């Protein structure tokens, strides 16, 4: 029956071909693909995967082909042969015990090698990054560089980065599909993982995710990674380590000059010495958040133009209680670690752990009612007259829309 065999093996072969083509497909169609060799870790994993896929495909083809051939060949037909009464065959049974065993050995040996390789201590000279999970955002600390930041991670290419991971609350898991494996973040425990982004990787942006279910907004706990050149990293790091250099007067001057596009306005003049920031125009579409702002959250964007960063810094930031949760390096009293560090918040492209774009209108709505925008968020509702879905009450004390505009102006200046 050689003809039949080929025909029946067809679909299986097709499956393999499809799988392999899809696997080979580049990162344009599948930007979060795990089939990359961008780090040493993922190169090891991929070679393991290739082996698993190879043997998996063989087992798949053999079993399905045997199954299909059997049921076609021995289907009951009028006048067909009667069933042969076979009860077993020791030799055959030993064979199909032994062959899988051999295949498994072929899988197990490189597996064990890879386990010990990837879990060895990080090589000397690695860049240390502390990753701290919070419901539902990420805190990053570079202990050697004195940097505290959130949700967006900068890593120089060609240098090993060693993550030290823990959590402030429940279990989270830290993962960039394109870079390699994930590790869980747990309170009372520290986990380690390290990898080296290839030196030729270039300046690129990547998506990452929290992959351990951590409560209501688990799906909204995303991360961005920027792999940058070493000099770019240095520039970024130097600036991030410095205190907030907001100058209320300079900011006010800019405001007076231009009442429009606030985003770029403060940018150019207020902070001449700002460090490197991943250029917005190089962000690929899939890295730009598209989360829709839920209906029912109204804010008149025209007010933003009248926002006064000085007033924002000196009055509304206190009034809104922001200082109770957010640290801003250089501002006395702003040291809380409940929420993300805002020292250089305007150097980030996203807010709320990669859920929304960093821009005036979004910030205003976020401050007005964060919990409406991100279900369950720890940041409470601040807009006066807004309904706080967790406290189940309407906010009476908070900030009105003008005060929010001031705070936004202030935040936008925190380059």
């Amino acid at each position, binding site marked *: 029956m050689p003809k039949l065999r080929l025909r029946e093996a067809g679909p299986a072969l097709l499956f393999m071909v499809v799988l392999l083509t899809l696997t080979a497909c580049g990162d344009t169609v599948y930007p979060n693909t*795990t089939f990359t060799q961008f780090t040493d870790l993922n190169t090891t*994993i991929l070679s393991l995967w290739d082996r698993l896929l190879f043997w998996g495909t063989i087992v798949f083809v053999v*079993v399905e082909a045997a199954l299909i051939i059997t049921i076609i060949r021995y289907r*009951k037909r009028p006048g067909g042969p009667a*069933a042969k009464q076979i*009860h077993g065959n020791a030799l055959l*049974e030993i064979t199909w015990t032994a062959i899988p065993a051999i295949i498994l050995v072929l*899988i197990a040996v490189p597996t064990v090698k890879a386990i010990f390789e990837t879990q060895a201590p990080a090589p000397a000279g690695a860049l240390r990054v502390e990753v701290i999970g919070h419901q539902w955002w990420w805190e990053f600390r570079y202990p050697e560089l004195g940097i505290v930041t959130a949700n967006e991670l900068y890593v120089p290419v060609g240098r090993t980065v060693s993550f030290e991971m823990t959590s402030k609350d429940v279990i989270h898991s830290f993962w960039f599909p394109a870079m*390699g*494996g994930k590790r869980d973040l747990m309170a009372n425990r520290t986990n380690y993982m390290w990898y080296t982004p290839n030196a030729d990787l270039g300046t690129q942006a990547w998506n990452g995710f929290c992959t351990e279910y951590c409560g209501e907004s688990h799906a909204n706990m995303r991360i961005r990674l920027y792999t940058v050149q070493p000099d770019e990293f240095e520039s970024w790091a130097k600036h991030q380590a410095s205190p907030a250099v907001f100058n209320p007067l300079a900011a006010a001057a800019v405001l007076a000059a231009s009442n429009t596009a606030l985003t770029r306005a403060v940018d150019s003049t207020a902070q001449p010495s700002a460090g490197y920031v991943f250029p917005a125009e190089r962000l690929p579409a899939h890295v730009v958040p598209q989360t829709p702002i839920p209906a029912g959250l109204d804010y008149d964007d025209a007010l933003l133009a009248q926002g006064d960063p000085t007033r924002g810094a000196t009055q509304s930031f206190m009034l809104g209680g922001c200082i109770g949760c957010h640290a801003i390096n250089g501002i006395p009293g702003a040291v809380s670690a409940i929420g993300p560090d805002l020292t250089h918040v305007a150097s980030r492209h996203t807010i709320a752990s990669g859920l929304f774009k960093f821009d005036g209108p979004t910030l205003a709505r976020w401050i007005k009612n964060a919990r409406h925008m991100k279900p369950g968020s720890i940041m409470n509702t601040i807009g006066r007259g807004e309904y706080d879905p967790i406290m189940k009450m309407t906010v009476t004390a908070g900030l009105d829309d003008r005060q929010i505009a001031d705070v936004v102006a202030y935040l936008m200046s925190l380059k």
Partner: protein
Amino acid sequence: MATIAAPTQAGKPDAYSNTTGIWSWIATTDHKRIGTLYLWTALFFFLVGGLEAVIIRTQLMRPNMGFVSADTYNQLFTMHGTTMVFLAIMPLSAAFFNFLIPLQIGARDVAFPRLNAFSYWVYLLGGIFLTVPILFHVAPNGGWFGYAPLTSNQFSPGNNIDFWVIGLQVLGVSSLAAAFNFITTIINMRAPGMTLMRMPMFTWMSFVVQFLLILAFPPITVALVFLIMDRFFGTTFYAIAAGADPLLWQHLFWVFGHPEVYILILPAFGLVSEILPTFSKKPLFGYNVMVYSGIMIGFLGFGVWAHHMFAVGMGAVADTIFSMMTMLIAIPTGVKIFNWIATMWAGEIRFTVAMKFAIALIGMFTIGGISGVMHSSPPADLQQTDTYFIVAHFHYVLFGGSIMGILGGIYFYFPKMTGRFMDERLGNWHFWGTFVGMNLTFFPMHFSGLYGMPRRVYRYDAGQGWDLFNLMSTYGTYLIAVSTLFFVWNFVRSRTRGAVAGSDPWGAGTLEWSIPSPPPEYNFAQLPEVSSRYPLWDLKDPAKTAGIDHSHADAMTITDAHAVPVHEETERFTAKELGIPMPLPTAKPLFTAVGLMTMFSGLPFLRNDMFAVAMTLTIGGACMLIGGLYAWLTSPLE
């Protein structure tokens, strides 16, 4: 055919059910009726779990959909997983344990008929307790494995998780009680001559499952007790502020959780091992090896739990050990797959619906098994864990394995349970819709997972490379749902309108087919004497069993001293007429079960500061429980 002991008086066709009406169900201690109750209830919960899946898939159909809210979604997948595992598949298996085991081993009933009724009632009440909250939007939302500390008071302050811990604890009582019962039944109620190595494969796999149950449930019982203590009495087992270790729950859960997945699959393997020989007209290939591989799977299943925890940082040595143990399981499982294929080889295969489902299990489970082996390599699993690749794996083994096997079992045993066939034409619609639908649903998940989609996300951005796969999955689900409607219609209708089936409609070989369909309450007018694995084939077609070690076709293998001869029967007698004592009907198990449930349902009120209500329910329930037990233990069984 010898009919020496066959009664000769004219019988009454439905005399076996000498009682009808609702009370006859409430007070029943008949294992077949309890099996029927399990079947209906579990099928209902399967539809509920399926409906939850349909909503989940609708929400994920396109990027950033707003069909349900984040919290609703989280409740849905938690309840979907919990319902499917604990309220659908396990009880569906229990339905078959109940209905089949006594028939297959030639017994009149299970060892403890009233305990059996108790198991069912506890299951029903626990299921209701667990499921009803979703109607009020307070359903559990911690995922089906409820990782602490997320499920501790601090992070889940509402009542949601209360329903989950208590519900699972109560369901555990049900499973444990049933397991002790079936262990005893299988060890001690086998008909003369029914040696262990002559037991039908379904009974064998069930036997293994009962041991998995009694040994795997205690760890989760303990984990749940800790969580209950934490949530209601302020202990610190999972309180991170007190220095608790977040891995405690995970280890205790998965020590249970992995054997649990074999609890879900082995009964289906057993059913398939009955269906394939029957429709291939051949005995099972390599019976002994099938038995040993089942035992091996169960045994190894206790040594692999931490493969669910490769990302938690256990260290290289632990990762290695658990990885190796996990890979080992592929060997006995592979043996089963190949032996099934060999069973069909050189047979005369009849493609009934039952057979199609059985064949589909072989094909689909293999896919799930292969992806399982891919997870078993820890570095590779770091790219797979908690993504849709895992979701694809476990649906291929759970849907492609357990559900396919159980559906096959339902088509196969329906005639025995009701005396009527299910409609084959509707059945074919059901089969093909389900088969195509499941592949359309779950195969794309391999890709969405490997292309980076995490699981348990209620929304995702467009352009991540997942849109097409998710759309396909959703359409596949709709296809399954539609074909399931065919099944429901077929199932409900065929009970009364299906073609009449005789005692042995498929030409099968095991004992349960030697008695009328549906079986009389006493099953066997006289205990059969067995000297073969396929007593019926010995009788009807000795060629099939010639040469099997444990069969002696030349000696009489099944004394056809049943109430009726093996061939078509028209006469039935009541147990009374035959002088067979049967367990008395009693509602005491139900009463006791209500007591147990009431006792536990007081706990959630503690959280709402309704101390008096809590105490009333708990003490009242405890009194009912003790009173019920006392009345039960002091009243005669038969």
